[in-house]
């Protein structure tokens, strides 16, 4: 009998032992299922979330440079909320920087818009069509599903994909929208970019935006298209230096606060944040798995106590320590791997259900990323937890002296 046949025999014995205590075995397995289920479901969902975020970021364009007021991440949040702005002087400074081809500003504001008697607060974005249309189309990947891009000076607007679905149901190309008493015509509906905010926006010509909101100056974000002959990093550096100098000179600021970032920085940022989120998720889900592992250990210790005599008999009839150890390890390994299979299966089912739900409800953008690596990880990890938790009970069983083991009446 070779090694594998021997393992096969031990496997059969182990399976027999587990079956003879099936309720306890299943309860223990259930403990592992919960742990692995949590890990697989949460990781695949967060991985899916990361992927869709990265996809949205890619739409921002790889080579574009974003200039925003506020230096730190916290300031950036302030800028988004409208607390800080770039002045026209800042924009002019950026335009003069070496290597800058085009500067497009993206001011935004919330205003009430009316369509066929319903009035709603909408998210308005002002874009200079003559300058920005090509950047939107070519660098940021904006496309229309209906109609086309507006022509400058025609009071035409673009609406996000969610506007006809949720804000003004049924609105389409050629329909009118009234904002602050001015009438605009929808020229096109944008394809979804995958974020609720962006898909709800109404894009106006910059001049119209200024007129409607009454804001003459100041933007929350400027997008810079660098000259392709220049290195993006150099341009970023140039912009930073130029802004710093002008601000210091003009406004006597000690520490001018603004951020110059590229799509790459964004991706890095998202990757970092999602990385932290995933580590936290993994840590919490692992606690569940550790509890499951303790369950295995408990079951196996009980089993060793109950079966002390059996162990004595096996040793008396010639079982080596390694044989006893192997049989017990196989038992805990089976608990681990069966729990792992069950947990993986349930985890994938949950993740995929959430994804299907997300596809049915456009509000809820989430995909599940179940890659084979994750499944293998789930199975290997649960097997490892099973064997690790079974090791100490198994070693205790293996090291029992046959005469002591036989004498026990339990």
């Amino acid at each position: 009998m070779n090694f594998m046949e021997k393992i096969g025999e031990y496997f059969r014995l182990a399976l027999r032992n587990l079956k003879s205590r099936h309720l306890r075995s299943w309860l223990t397995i259930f403990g592992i299922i919960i742990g692995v289920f949590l890990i697989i479901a949460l990781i695949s969902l967060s991985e899916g979330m990361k992927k869709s975020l990265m996809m949205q970021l890619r739409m921002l364009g790889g080579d574009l440079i974003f200039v925003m007021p506020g230096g730190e991440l916290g300031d950036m949040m302030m800028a988004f909320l409208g607390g800080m702005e770039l002045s026209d002087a800042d924009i002019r400074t950026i335009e003069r920087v070496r290597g800058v081809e085009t500067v497009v500003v993206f001011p935004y504001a919330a205003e009430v818009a009316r369509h066929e008697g319903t009035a709603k607060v909408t998210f308005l974005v002002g874009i200079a069509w003559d300058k920005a249309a090509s950047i939107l189309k070519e660098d940021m990947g904006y496309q229309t599903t209906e109609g086309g891009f507006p022509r400058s000076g025609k009071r035409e607007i673009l609406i996000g994909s969610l506007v006809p679905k949720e804000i003004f149901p049924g609105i389409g190309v050629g329909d009118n929208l009234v904002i602050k008493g001015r009438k605009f015509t929808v020229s096109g509906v944008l394809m979804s970019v995958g974020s609720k905010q962006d898909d709800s926006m109404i894009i106006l010509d910059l001049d119209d935006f200024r007129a409607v909101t009454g804001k003459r100056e100041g933007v929350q974000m400027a997008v810079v298209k660098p000259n392709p002959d220049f290195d993006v990093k150099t341009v970023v550096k140039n912009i930073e230096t130029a802004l710093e100098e002008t601000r210091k000179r003009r406004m006597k600021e000690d520490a001018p606060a603004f951020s110059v970032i590229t799509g790459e920085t964004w991706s890095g940022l998202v990757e970092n944040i999602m990385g932290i989120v995933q580590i936290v998720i993994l840590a919490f889900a692992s606690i569940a798995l550790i509890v499951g592992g303790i369950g295995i250990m408990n079951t196996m210790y009980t089993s060793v106590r109950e079966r002390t005599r059996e162990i004595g008999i096996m040793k008396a009839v010639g079982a080596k320590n390694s044989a006893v150890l192997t049989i017990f390890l196989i038992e805990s390994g089976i608990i681990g791997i069966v729990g792992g299979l069950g947990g993986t299966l349930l985890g994938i089912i949950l993740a995929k259900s959430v994804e299907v739900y997300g596809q049915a409800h456009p509000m809820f953008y989430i995909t599940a990323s179940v890659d084979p690596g994750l499944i293998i990880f789930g199975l290997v990890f649960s097997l490892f937890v099973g064997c690790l938790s079974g090791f100490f009970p198994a070693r205790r069983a293996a090291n029992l002296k046959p005469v002591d083991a036989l004498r026990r009446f339990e």
Partner: protein
Amino acid sequence: MIKAIIKLENVWKIYQLDKVELLALRGIDLEIAPGGFVSIMGPSGSGKSTLLNMIGCLDVPTKGRVFLKGKDIARLSEDELAFLRGKTIGFVFQEFNILPNLTALENVTLPMIFQGASLTEREKRARELLISVGLKDRISHQPAELSAGERQRVAIARAFGNDPELVIADEPTGNLDSATGKKIMEILANFHKKQGKTIMVVTHDPNIANYSEKIINIQDGQIVADHQKTKQTLWPK
């Protein structure tokens, strides 16, 4: 001279119970030659089970040496000892000690698994053994479906699984009624007569000792008499 299967040299076994030392065995010298049928007799607490554990190499002496097939067991690793013991010695216990979740057949094949016998080899031999102990119709039964006597027969079949030279039976009829006990002893005697197996039985029942050729009396951890069965020592059947 024929080499002894088991040889005990000045074997002492001392149990430390709190502050009291219990001398279970006190300087036992014994040789078990192949082919005999030996009984170990003695009152409870005389040390006969301890002696049996020594002979069966299930325990190690506090002092003195035990040789299994000429090898000092103190010099063998646990695994080597387990393998050699499994090959050389078969055990029959008072409480049968068959594994409850294995069938009769699987219980008998168990010692052969640890010796590395192949599946077909194991099942063939186990079947033959079960038939020879009269359990032809019980081969795939679980222990719970067997009577006490049948369980002990499974245990005997298992003891002979690896074709051992020596089979040690510790009060094999202790949990059985006298009629069943007699059948069990006849099965053991049969293995001895027909296959020339060495059988060693621990008992306090003279009727059981009657089956043996040699009786060793033990008292207070010492052998007090070691004699061939004679008319004087023969109890009426």
